[in-house]
């Protein structure tokens, strides 16, 4: 039926498409090229930053094409999917015929194949072919798995030998490992998560925040941070971050462990990594977390000392004099972080300069003149707030530890792929299916010996081996 034929035609065409190595090359190069783009466009940043960098149109275009999160985009995943299909289809195509080559008990040898190769060494010997045969055969048997003796139509004695037939499978081990590895990463992205949590010393938490969505996630156990310690070298670089954690199940401690960078804790498939730390805010007070309805800001020019004040609420925006730009009261944070310190509640302002750049200005409520340190042409201060001196070491130091919390059931699969890939490479690159043929032709007063070798890969290596074998035989 014609219909069947056409659908068969499409099927065959699709199969042929995926069975081609040209597709492999195109896909590999496309992946390389697109991956590069993602290193020039910083990924997963705020829309504002992109708008400034690319302008309105560029931003819309790149955003529509998912270039700001491109490694997770549909088209990047599609490229990887195509690669997987390509590998699988190619492997199926080849494996059927390959298995006929690989799984044979008694390999047959074709003398004509050895006669064609240029990789041969010849020498003459004054003994008879029969004598040489008995000398040579044990040498071949020691080096090769299969050997066979045949007499040619021209009366020559042919000693055939071969080994490492199975190494033809090496490429497929590599390809299968790549598929396994990608499968593992898929398992991880479906069944795993990546989150973080900050735990103050002596406190217990059971809820973390997911990195992608920012949503809260409840763990099947709780974590208590018993202690956090940071040590520094004499030059000021950090030497060690250490958190003493206790895992509690139904309120009862079940596991206690110190975690360090590179030494995570794993419990019930969930991993806790030492990731950051900070100092706790000075003792929190009830009014701390309250957002003032309106604040009074004072803007002071550093050079002239001129200043003016303004009332502003969250979301307000006003122009600065002297063409300095626009200032926007962007938001309120309960705990402003600066240089690893928690400065308590405060406002975040966005300064939009006339040259198009933006700068963030932090205004901790309890340190009204904090912005003086920023080093711009002016500073902003908050009036009418309870003032505290800015003295980091003033309170008894209390730290919180920042943990990266992950679950990735795909990791063992990915690692299996890693190991398989390396094994596959070693087989593919450094081993080959090798066979040799030693021809003994009777000559006047002796024998003409020709040693020929063929291999499916690494022809140069085989030439060296053949020459060595000929030398060895000649020396007998």
């Amino acid at each position: 039926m014609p219909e069947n034929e056409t659908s068969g035609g499409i099927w065959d065409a699709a199969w042929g498409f995926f069975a081609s190595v040209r597709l492999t090359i195109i896909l590999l190069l496309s992946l390389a090229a697109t991956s590069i783009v993602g290193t020039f466009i910083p990924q997963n940043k705020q829309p504002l930053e992109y708008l400034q960098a690319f302008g309105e149109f560029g931003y819309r275009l790149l955003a529509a094409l998912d270039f700001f999160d491109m490694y997770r985009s549909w088209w990047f995943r599609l490229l990887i999917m195509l690669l997987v299909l390509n590998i699988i289809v190619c492997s199926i195509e080849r494996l059927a015929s390959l298995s006929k080559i690989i799984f044979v008990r008694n390999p047959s040898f074709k003398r004509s194949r050895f006669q064609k190769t240029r990789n041969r060494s010849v020498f003459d010997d004054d003994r008879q072919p029969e004598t040489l045969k008995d000398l040579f055969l044990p040498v071949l048997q020691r080096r090769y798995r299969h050997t066979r003796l045949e007499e040619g139509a021209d009366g020559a004695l042919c000693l055939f030998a071969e080994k490492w037939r199975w190494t033809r499978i090496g490429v497929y081990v590599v390809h299968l490992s790549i598929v396994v590895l990608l499968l593992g990463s898929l398992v991880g992205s479906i069944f795993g998560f990546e989150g973080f949590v900050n735990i103050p010393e002596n406190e217990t938490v059971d809820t973390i925040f997911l990195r992608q969505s920012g949503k809260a996630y409840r763990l099947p156990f709780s974590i208590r941070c018993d202690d956090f310690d940071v040590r520094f070298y004499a030059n000021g670089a950090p030497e060690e971050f250490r958190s003493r954690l206790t895992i509690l199940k139904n309120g009862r401690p079940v596991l206690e462990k110190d975690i360090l960078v590179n030494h995570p804790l794993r419990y019930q498939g969930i991993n806790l990594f030492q990731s950051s730390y900070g100092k706790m805010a000075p003792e929190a007070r009830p009014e701390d977390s309250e957002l003032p309805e309106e604040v009074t800001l004072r803007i002071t020019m550093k050079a002239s000392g001129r200043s003016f004040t303004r009332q502003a609420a969250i979301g307000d925006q006003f122009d600065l004099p002297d063409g300095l730009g626009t200032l926007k009261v962007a938001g309120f944070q309960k705990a402003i972080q600066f240089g690893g310190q928690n400065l308590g509640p405060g406002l975040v302002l966005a300064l939009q300069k006339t040259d198009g750049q933006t700068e963030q200005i932090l205004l901790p409520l309890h340190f009204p003149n904090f912005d003086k340190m920023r080093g711009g042409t002016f500073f902003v201060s908050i009036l009418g707030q309870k003032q505290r001196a800015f003295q980091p070491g003033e309170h008894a130091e209390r730290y919180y530890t920042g943990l990266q919390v992950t679950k990735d059931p795909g990791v063992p699969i990915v690692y299996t792929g890693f190991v398989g890939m390396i094994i596959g490479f070693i087989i593919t690159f450094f081993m080959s299916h090798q066979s040799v043929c030693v021809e003994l032709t009777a000559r006047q007063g002796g024998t003409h010996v020709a040693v020929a070798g063929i291999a499916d890969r690494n022809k140069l290596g085989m030439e060296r081996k053949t020459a060595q074998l000929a030398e060895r035989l000649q020396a007998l």
Partner: protein
Amino acid sequence: MSSSHILSIVTFIYGLAAFLYIFEWVFGKQAAGRAATVVAFIGLIGNTAGIILRWIESYRMGIGHAPLSNLYESLVFFAWCIILLHLFLEWRYKKRIFGVIGTVAAVAALAYASLKPSEIQPLIPALKSNWLIAHVFTCFIGYASFAIAFGISLLYVLRHVGGPAVLKRLPSDSLMDELTHQLVMFGFLFLSAGIISGAVWANSAWGRYWGWDPKETWSLVTWFIYATLLHARFMRGWRGNRIAVLSIVGFLAVLFTYFGVNYLPGLHSYGAMGQ
């Protein structure tokens, strides 16, 4: 004498070897070539001693760690790998052309290293991992192999676009082509092992084995380029110029992975504690 003194002397020894290798190549004086091999070998011993001494020094300072932890140390190790590889190839194939490439590359690496801070630094927490040592070790063996493949490919292409007559004195086209292929395979194995050990390290330090940060991404780009080369050759029978060009492009990607990435917007989390 401190390790950095020794290593700066080694730079000059390699420089002398490079001069002798090139002298032989251009003027055909065998004796210069034989001397070059000896000088390169002496340089290799010095290079080895420098690395070991640096290791010991770090323990004396109470911050002991394998000398593979920063740019300076990795460049020194890179030079060591290249010279070792070129001497091996020279012995195996009885051709001195590898010496020209190896010594020039090693001098370049050490000269660049000498511009970088060479003090022994204590390790920050993220770098305290055996996986990191495996990572640097395997990556640089791979890079050394790619570097020599690059040199051969470059000479090959130059000869085919009608470069100077000395290029005629190089080994035959088929040997250069075959060696490029062999070296790329060897390098590819180690690059893969390097990417893998890096992934395992990242997983133990940050809880993710792959994060698409620019350095990781560029190492993968390099991997894709060399994978393309291998497939083009295995399956489509590419030879000669086309393979040489891919090998050159591949090595440029290696260089970018190592040096260029730092100039990209947004930084590699190398050594940073968080992300």
